[in-house]
């Protein structure tokens, strides 16, 4: 599968996750979110940017607790929980946010 954006073709897997992480840019995230009827706010971007930084270092998306803790530190303790993340990413923070961040879908019993 693939989609076109600004004259460039982006390869994805069956569920729309980017095939090549290095293809990613801000517009790709925005496009994917739009497809899900989601407008990316600065709060979404905090999560997406953290996911990319973490992936860059560890080659895997962060565990949900790692993510909530990091977001809690950045945006305040009241936002450092999965309830808040589910409000931002109703399909599940791990899967939906990873997709917009250009990361592969987490696999396993999750």
């Amino acid at each position, binding site marked *: 599968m693939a989609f076109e954006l600004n004259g460039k073709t982006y390869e994805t897997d069956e*569920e729309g996750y980017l095939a090549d992480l290095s293809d990613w840019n801000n517009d790709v995230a925005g496009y994917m979110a739009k497809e899900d009827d989601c407008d990316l706010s600065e709060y979404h971007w905090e999560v997406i940017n953290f996911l990319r930084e973490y992936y860059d270092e*560890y080659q895997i998306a962060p*565990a949900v*607790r790692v993510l909530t803790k990091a977001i809690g530190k950045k945006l305040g303790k009241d936002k450092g929980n999965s309830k808040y993340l589910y409000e931002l990413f109703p399909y599940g923070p*791990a*899967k939906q946010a990873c997709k917009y961040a250009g990361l592969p879908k987490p*696999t*396993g*019993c*999750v």
Partner: protein
Amino acid sequence: MAKVEFETPPLPDQLSIPAVLPGAMAHSRPFVAKPEHQQPLGFPGELVDNWQKVALDKMDELLGRYRSLQVFLDACVKCGACTDKCHYYLGTGDPKNMPVARQDLLRKVYRRYFTVAGKWFPRLVGAVELSEEVINDWYSYYHQCSECRRCSVYCPYGIDTAEITMAGREILASIGVGQKYSNEIIGKVHTIGNNLGLPEPALANTLEGLEEEVEEDISVSVKFPLDQQGADVLLVPPSADFFAEPHVDGLIGYAKVFHQAGISWTLSSYASEAANFGIFIGNYENMQKVAQRIRQAALDLGVKRIVVGECGHAWRVAYSFWNTLIGPFDFLDPHYPAPQHICEFTHDLLYQGGLKLDREANDDKVVTFHDSCNVSRGSRLGSTPGGQFSIPRDLIRAACTHFVDMAPETIHEHTFCCGGGGGLLTDDLLELRVKGALPRAQALRQVIEAHGVTHMAAICAICKSQFTKVLPQYGMGMDMVISVHQLIGDALVFESEH
């Protein structure tokens, strides 16, 4: 995100047998594995040219290898006892989700090629040629069985549809048509050591974070040791316990139990996964290879005991198959069961007075327990029959004042699958997962209404993830789902160390 168009069925007051809806789920098929998911597992990358011959040769091999398979294919008398027992039939109404019909998908081909009557008089005995249509049906409906074995409880011959499903999937993978979800995951275990593909640095980072969190929370320095040589216990949890909620609170619970009991333990970055999807795809070699990592880690770390975390099918593999897959365990301390389940471990400590619990910590909850299929029907806990039912409930009662069971026909060996077991916990099967959860959701709603149940505890990573995802479809909260060891962990009484 994958927008799946389907309607969540309304929850009935009483579970009833649905009217038959032929073909209702014929469209349900998981993504097919790509060559890069197939080949590392020893399967052809894509459909082979001579697929009929390869499939029949594989069936022949499996019939010789598993005597049970031939008995199951021969023994059915079409009595119908199983027809209304499968949660996928109850949730979808598709008659091919009746266990006998699911078995017949393989049985009709078996009869055509492996029985005298089927070779000479195929029409008389319902025998059919292996065609592309049959293969398509296999792919669809062998991925609508969670291998939960509920039907086998009611079968007067004890026919286990799970084994037939496993054979069906094994044949499919051997002709190049494997399932992406399971096979990709098995590949990650072979290369990285867990289903998530969580490498050692990320695992270490995650565990450090948990240590900080628990320290902040209860002012006790509970450790989450990784690769610690010479520890007494190697704990092998499902990797979802590192990653997901509510699983991680169960992992914290295990760590608190070890801490309070003063027993040295460690996790392994090489064998950081209890789950073994080799059983789901019915492939012995992959199941053995996945299990072998745990034996290797136990030997390398020099541990005396192996304890398995809250993971349903992992426990079935460990309890029922490890001894022949990766045994003998003569290098472990013979005073303890090998392997041991974390619930057995905690239960032993509890009854020896090694743990101090205060139920008040969970007084805000009314808890029920979901028996996981692989623990209930594929294994046992403890040293007495039925321990797999009593031990988790003993643990919950030790940690909670308010516990109620769901309806008797939905618990213990009669338990309903969560709807996501057996390699089906993937978004491309979401419709099936939601509909298959209907019987459990119905029983749960009943105790919510009758007894004010607030939480459903489970001891399986798949159950926890599945319910978190599908309960909201039935109007129940995802945060109802809780690990048994979270209840324990929250009730353990610690003196502050600071």
